[in-house]
């Protein structure tokens, strides 16, 4: 582990967690439904962006190894979250909202994997 990559993972972790917190706060101020929209959006967007970092030929060529670690493992790894996703599913089940829990879990996985997959299939470099 080089020091540069460790530093960038730390910086990414700080920014990713803060961004998730701020976005969650903003979304919960305007979205009052039971569906955990904040975590959902963060996880789908983060899956798409990590897909770009890992699969996009232009980004693979442009970003140094340390930078892709900082962005991919640091920022996007911390921006997206799995524990809150499971905790929110648990809360929905505890409140008897089974359909909502099912919808949350399936849409998160299907759209998350789709968002990552589309970056492998389509080369978005042309639009950079």
């Amino acid at each position, binding site marked *: 582990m080089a020091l540069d990559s460790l530093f960038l993972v730390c910086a990414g972790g700080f920014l990713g*967690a803060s961004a998730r*917190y701020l976005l969650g706060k903003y979304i919960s101020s305007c979205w009052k439904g039971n569906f955990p929209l904040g975590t959902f959006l963060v996880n789908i967007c983060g899956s798409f962006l990590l897909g770009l970092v890992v699969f996009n030929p232009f980004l693979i060529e442009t970003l140094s190894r340390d930078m892709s670690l900082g962005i991919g493992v640091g920022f996007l790894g*911390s921006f997206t979250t799995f524990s809150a996703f499971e905790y929110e599913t648990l809360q929905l089940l505890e409140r008897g909202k089974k359909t909502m829990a099912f919808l949350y879990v399936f849409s998160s996985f299907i759209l998350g994997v789709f968002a990552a997959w589309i970056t492998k299939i389509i080369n978005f470099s042309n639009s950079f």
Partner: protein
Amino acid sequence: MKILSVGLGGVLGALARYYIYVRLNSNLSFPLGTLTVNLAGSFFLAFFLTVALKHLYHRSFLVLAVSTGFTGAFTTFSAVSVEAVNIASNNPILSLTYLAVGFFGGLGLAFAGRYLGKLVSASITDKFGGEAGGVG
């Protein structure tokens, strides 16, 4: 201040996850590191929040740093999506298995964390009495 505590928790969470990645994800065609952090984090978050919301509610910076900051950053969803795509190109069944084990394992562990949290929470109330007992 709140952003700072979430951010600092995020730094520690990302570092801990990176360490486990390096130890467990390399040399394997199966992302054991990601699975490990997600399962452990799902258990811990449910446990911690169950205890904290009852006994640490007046320490909101600490609760935010540990839950939203540390545990949120320690676990990750984006890597799961990308790994599922990667595995699916060779072995779609393994990819689905990875997603299912992660999700159902995490949910089962979250329920276990909730249960253990309630036990610990009750014993704190017994010993110290009152909702905020034990943290004065």
